[in-house]
């Protein structure tokens, strides 16, 4: 039917989808803002328990990977197929490093006995429990989105390889890229809210 070549419309649809993602995480930020108001001191003292270096490294990783995806679109527009695939591969690899860091971070916390419902956490002041509740929920949901974004990027790499994404036809790459950038965008807010409230 008449819509198949309307890339503006298809991109509009993707943006609309991104709004739903923004509101999904938005609900969590609603909770964060209310609990920050209620437990400001506990949030600040608990935030210091998180590893700022690891958080900063992950921020840099996501920013660079976002750059790689944006550059991949430029590469496709210039018909540099190999370059585009290399850039996207780099972005996926960075996503993996991000998840590895997350695994280390969560693993360390679990090792210390800090996880939802753990005896170590249950004895701490209420603000600390809520902080970690939000921390695990938000970063967990975010990590899930990283995984989905990586799958999308891998699909794009394959499609470039098959010649299905090319100079005049890169809508799929644009839309997957938008998704990846959004995941980055959400992390830009998670980072200061959890790692930098000192």
């Amino acid at each position, binding site marked *: 039917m008449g819509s198949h070549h309307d890339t503006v419309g298809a991109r509009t649809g993707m943006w609309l989808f991104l709004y*739903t993602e923004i*509101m999904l995480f938005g*609900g969590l930020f609603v909770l964060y803002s209310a609990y920050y108001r209620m437990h400001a001191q506990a949030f600040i003292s608990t935030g210091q328990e998180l590893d700022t270096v690891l958080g900063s490294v992950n921020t840099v990783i996501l920013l660079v990977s976002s750059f790689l995806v944006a550059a991949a679109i430029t590469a496709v527009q210039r018909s540099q197929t190999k370059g585009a695939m290399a850039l996207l591969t780099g972005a996926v690899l960075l996503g993996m490093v991000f998840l590895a860091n997350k695994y280390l971070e969560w693993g360390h916390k679990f090792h210390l006995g800090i996880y939802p419902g753990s005896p170590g956490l249950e004895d701490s002041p*209420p603000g600390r429990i809520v902080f970690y509740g939000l921390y695990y929920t938000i970063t967990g949901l975010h990590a899930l989105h990283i995984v989905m974004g990586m799958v999308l990027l891998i699909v794009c790499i394959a499609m470039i390889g098959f010649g299905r994404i090319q100079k005049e036809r890169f809508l799929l790459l644009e839309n997957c890229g938008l998704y990846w950038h959004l995941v980055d965008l959400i992390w830009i807010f998670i980072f200061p809210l959890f790692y930098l409230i000192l």
Partner: protein
Amino acid sequence: MIPRPWAVSTERNRAIPMGETMSNAVTSFYDTPFPARFRGVWSWLFTLDHKRIALLYLGAATFWFIIAVVLGFLVRMELMTPGRTIMGAETYNAAFTLHGVIMIFLFVIPAMPAIFGNFLLPIQIGTDDVFFPKLNLLSWYLYMLGGALAIVSLFADGPPDTGWTFYVPFSVSTQTNVGLTLTAAFILGLSSMLTGLNFITTVHRMRVPGMGWLQIPLFTWSLYATAWVQLLATPVLSITLLLVVFERVFGTGLFDPARGGDPVLYQHLFWMYSHPAVYIMILPGMGVISEIIPVFSRKSIFGYKAIVGSSIGIATAGSLVWAHHMFTSGMSDVAVFVFSFLTFIVAVPSAIKVFSWVSTMYKGSILMTPPLFFALCFIYLFSVGGLTGLVLGAAGPNIQVHDTHFVVAHFHFVMFGGTGFSFFAGLHFWWPKMFGRMYHFKRAYLSAILIVTGFMLHYVPMFILGLQGMPRRYYDYLEQFAPGNFFAGLGALIMVPGLFLMVINLMVSLKQPVDAPADPWGGTTLEWSVPSPPPLHNFIERPRPGKYPYDFSRVRTP
């Protein structure tokens, strides 16, 4: 002898080449599978045709509607006399929870956009399908999956007993299978969101050239405003339900006061979606009424721009009043004051619509038909529902009637008297368009009269019971509430047969030959310019939208 109102033929029918004579010559979408390679039942299960998808929704939604009606009926029968009447307390809790969950998430929210919207939105804006046909089919499958999960949740660990609001802490601590019901609601929300996404893109990108924003029919306008609410509010519900699931599975403690959480925040998040959701439910219904009233008044709609503006106004203001559900939950007094004030503001755009409909009829040439009859019932019942909403929105009276049967009556006046009746009106209005057949008029009137009589007897006593202080959702009650509950049960005994008569009457019409003309009522929007039922790509030649969608100057009544 079946009355045939389309003997009231219109100039327009004859003037337009795709009128009565054409409708038999054109192959309808029923005989043209899309994609063409599928046959039989597969041509429905894999269809990308928006009209077939609409009918798939119609079938499923009717099924859920009947189930939920029966459940509600059983609840009322149980309450008809004090003490145990027909079921135990556990069953009663499950029955009212399921009545609410099924009605809200499987019928009222999806029905109007997914059935009428899918069928008519593309036709009203003069195009051949929605923008993302595959996504449209996916939405239907998500809807079915959500419904299936809702059924499964009945049998695993016992049916959920939280009410449709899933309030913490009970929803976290109850041993029944709430987790699965929450997942079902999550998936149904996703389906609703994707439908909204599809409609927004369609309205922006696929209007026929020549149709500007102020030439869009009002039903499509209302769907467009609704779609934005679906898109922006539903994710908040999704995350809220997910949080309750996390709470049950991992014990994150985000809503547990003992661990620093705050259950009132659950209510904030829940109503941030669920209050806008009642506008998802009612706005398309208002759109249906805005289509029906001018057609049967043979008069251009009064205040087209005001109605468009009020749709947007309701969508906007309606998103900012959620906390009026929480006046007795321990919110700050400032919040009670502010949200009470905001609630009164929402009444303004709703009233603009009611006044516009009534003004449309003033000095019109009114032709009584079943759709108009249902529409008139809507205006009355919705007005009562809306005005009692102000009683609830006012902070003082709210304390008295909060969580009493007054709320139940108000809610059903708006959702059943409003959305329900506009759905019935739309069903009778577009039935000939969807199926190419006209139904029996006298039976339709009879069913409408039974429903509306039963309705009044059913819900008016609940207002009184609420003012007397009878709480909602209670299994048993004091002796002094017995008469009201008895009358309410009596009302149900009249209303439910009426509903079944209506459904049967429509079903029976399907046995007739396909002989409805393109424009049985004398409508002016584009869907009446195509054959009934429409061909696969809706239009035989490129539609030419008029300067104004409600120009009746060419429609004649003998």
